[in-house]
Structure formats: C-alpha cells, structure tokens
C-alpha cells in the first residue's frame, strides 16, 4: 500500500492540485447555470399545471433525483452518443467535459426545479393578489414579486445544492476528466503517496466548501434584509443540517 507517510508531500501536492481547481469550478459554475435554466423550465409546467408537460417534468425529476449521479454520468457519456448516432449526428468529437457539465446540469436541474417549486409555493397568495390588484400582468407579478421572495427563501437550499454539486464533481474522474480528483489519481500513482494526496485533496474541497458557505450566508443576509430574523433562523438551521445530515437532504422539499 504505497510508501511511508511523509507530511511534506501534503504541502507539495496542494499547489499541484490547485492547478486543476479551475476545472472543478468550471464544472460547478457551468452545470449550476445550466441547472438553473433547466430547473426553471421544468418547474413551470408543474406550477401552472400544464397537462402532459407536467408529467414529463415529474418523470425527469424522479429519474435524476432517484438514481446515482455516477450512473447518470455513464448513461449520458456512453448512451447519448449512441442515441445521436441513431439520428446520424456524430458526437465522437465532443469533449468529455461537455458530457460531464451536461450530466451535472441535468442532475442539479432536477433538484433546483423542486427547490423553485417549494419556494414559489411558500410565497403567500396575497402577494400575487396585491400585485394583480394594482394592475400588474401575470409575468410582472411573477418576476417582480414572487421570484425575488422565492429566491431569498430558497437560498439555503440552493447553497446546499451547490456544495453538493462541488463534491459530486469529483466523480468526473471516472470518465477521465482531469479535474482535481483526476489529478490526485495520477499524482498518487506516480509518487505512491496516496494518503498524502487524499489529505491534500480533502483539505482543498473543505476550504472551498467553507468559502462557498460563507458567501451564501452573506448573500442570504443581503437578500433577506427585509426580514432579518428569517435569515438568522434559516442559516443556523442550515449549519446544523450541514454538520449532521450532509448527504441526505440535497434540496427539494423545504417546509
């Protein structure tokens, strides 16, 4: 099992791994952006009860919430090109990274759509009625009144999602993507100092998670400045959840 533990390797590995942090962050940022778009599109038919589309959305959400992201990666990476071949589209030159971003985007889209649905449902009906009563259109009422309030209350759930997504990206190495975890594999192989590499790797993930957590907390305070007591409450709850229930609750139902 590799060579004897040497602390110095940890310090040596950290900068080497950090070179690949940008790939990890790129996957997170791109897939969350994609997930937001997909999530909103998928949430709409269920919020407005549009027949058929509503069903398709529900199936999509159950699939991506109910299967492991690793399997989703394999299915999309190996399955999608086959499917496209059937439509005589050649996907062999598409970079692996695109498949990875697509998978994580679709995966978080499912969770984000549930978060949007829950948050929009939590906005008091009276808010929309007041908007209609002053003469706003449905679109104006949704974008100016409902969405800002929904976004503010769903920020803790969204923060959990982004951090979970960050950790999930570590699975991309299974398709040979050179992000941080992928790099750690090769570093481990070449030096035979596996433990040191994994300690360095987990330190980086941990610090990045902490930074994200702090940033979201600040954002939440800002967005909930209209109801500061709510901000304190949810973030405290979230910290506890983060400590004790890191994997079980990724998003979706709140309240």
């Amino acid at each position: 099992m590799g060579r004897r533990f040497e602390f110095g390797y940890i310090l040596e590995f950290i900068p080497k791994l950090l070179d690949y942090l940008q790939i990890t962050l790129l996957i997170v940022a791109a897939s969350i952006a994609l997930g937001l778009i997909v999530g909103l599109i998928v949430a709409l038919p269920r919020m407005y009860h549009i027949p058929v589309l509503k069903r398709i959305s529900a199936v999509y959400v159950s699939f991506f919430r109910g299967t492991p992201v690793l399997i989703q990666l394999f299915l999309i990476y190996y399955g999608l090109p086959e499917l496209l071949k059937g439509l005589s589209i050649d996907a062999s030159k598409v970079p692996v990274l695109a498949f990875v971003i697509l998978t994580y985007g679709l995966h978080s889209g499912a969770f984000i759509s549930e978060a949007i649905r829950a948050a929009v449902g939590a906005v008091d009906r009276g808010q929309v009625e007041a908007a209609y009563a002053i003469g706003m259109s449905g679109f104006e009422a949704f974008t100016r009144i409902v969405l800002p309030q929904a976004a503010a209350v769903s920020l803790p759930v969204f923060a959990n999602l982004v951090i979970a997504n960050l950790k999930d990206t570590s699975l991309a190495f299974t398709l040979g993507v050179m992000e941080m975890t992928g790099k750690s594999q090769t570093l481990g192989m070449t030096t035979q100092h596996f433990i040191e590499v994994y300690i360095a790797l987990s330190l980086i993930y941990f610090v990045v998670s902490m930074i994200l957590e702090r940033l979201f907390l600040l954002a939440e305070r800002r967005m909930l400045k209209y109801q500061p007591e709510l901000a304190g409450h949810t973030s405290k709850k979230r910290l506890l959840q983060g400590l004790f229930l890191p994997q079980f609750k990724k998003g979706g139902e709140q309240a």
Partner: protein
Amino acid sequence: MIKLSGIRKTFGKQEVLKGIDLIVEQGDVVAILGPSGSGKTTLLRCINYLERPNEGEVAINQLKVNVKRASKQDIHTLRKKTAMVFQNYNLFKHKTALENVMEGLVIVQKLPKRQARELAVQALEKVGLGGKLDEYPSRLSGGQQQRVGIARALALNPEVILFDEPTSALDPELVGEVLAVIRKIAGEGITMIIVTHEMAFARDVASHVVFMDGGVVVEEGPPHQLFGTPKEERTRQFLKRSIQEWSYSI
C-alpha cells in the same frame, strides 16, 4: 359611476352571490355590512376580477366588463381603474414602504422614477408615515402596515378604492389610527367601497350603507335611514346583535 349588475358567483355547489345590483356614484363612500360568510369579500373581489363572477357586469364609468365577453385586456383595465386595501395588508414583503407605493406607479403606470417617488412620498405623508419611507413591512406595526396599504392604493389615483375589512386584523388600540386615515381621505372626494364591522364608523363616514346577507343585498340606503329606521327584519336583527357586541366590547 360604478355599476354592478346581476353579479352571481358560485364556489362548487355553493352560490355565494345571488345576483347583486349596486350603483355607486362618483365620490360616494359606500359601507357594506353583513354577517360573516354573507359574500362581502367575494363581491369586492368580483369588482376587480380577483374572482371571476359566473354572471353579471361590472361597469366603471365608460368601461363595461361583462363576464361573458371579458377579455384579458378588459380585466387589466378594470384593475388599473381600481385599487384594493386588504384585510391582512398584503404589502410586498421584500419592498420598503416607499417601494411598495412606487411599484404600481413605475411598473403599471410607467411613470418616471422621480415623479413616482414624489407621488409616493406625498401619499405616505398623507397617511402619516412620512418618517417611515425606508422601513420594510416586517418592521412596521399592523396599523402602520395598513396605512402603507392605503397609501399604495391612494397613490394610484384610482376611480374607486375597495376596502375589505381594513381594521379587522388589527389590535384594538391600532384601529383608531387607520379609521382616522380612511375618514380623512373620504373627505377628499375619492370614491370608496368599504366592507366593515365598525358600525359607528360606517354611520359617520358613509354616504350610503348596504346590508348584505346570504349573497343578496337585503337593504340599502343613507346611514340615518339604515341605522335609524331599517325596513327589513333581518337588518334589524343584525344591527341589534352588532350593537350589543359593540357595547359589550367596551
């Protein structure tokens, strides 16, 4: 003039409004009284189509909206001509008092921001909240929130303001300040329809009083007549009960 003709509304099997006719003249302050469940809120909400009536016509001056031919545009116009003050205020939670009042002016009436701000400040000063412009609703008392709600309606300069029990969610000690504000703007000639349980207020402020029960208008008339010499037995019963409750609560 506002004219409601043959307004009917059913929820499921229950007929809540059974053909309401009502005329409100320009500058009138109409008080609607009636036991709870008699359809008062539903009637107000049919006027601005927060509820779509099953039958009937709502006319505000030149604009006539019959439910059979009510287009989206008609409903939108109807809502722009009316404003509503809600029982539980329904202020936009994520906006300050000033932003609450400006919202309709900027987004619906498309006024330039500066002009909207001026009008909003004026309206808030009128309800005595010139010092609370930048407070969020969560930091205001119920009475203050409802006064912002009134300012939000007032600033739009609508042809009628609909009040749905504006003081019934308030602690007793806060009722007075809100009634005082309504009384003040009633004196300025704005047309108002007010659903209320405040009998003394209705008697003093209204120019016309309507008594509803079981989805119909039982009796209507000037306040001295309706309170002094009610014709219908049901009105007498209701007034007797309300005045008893009212004196017990003192």
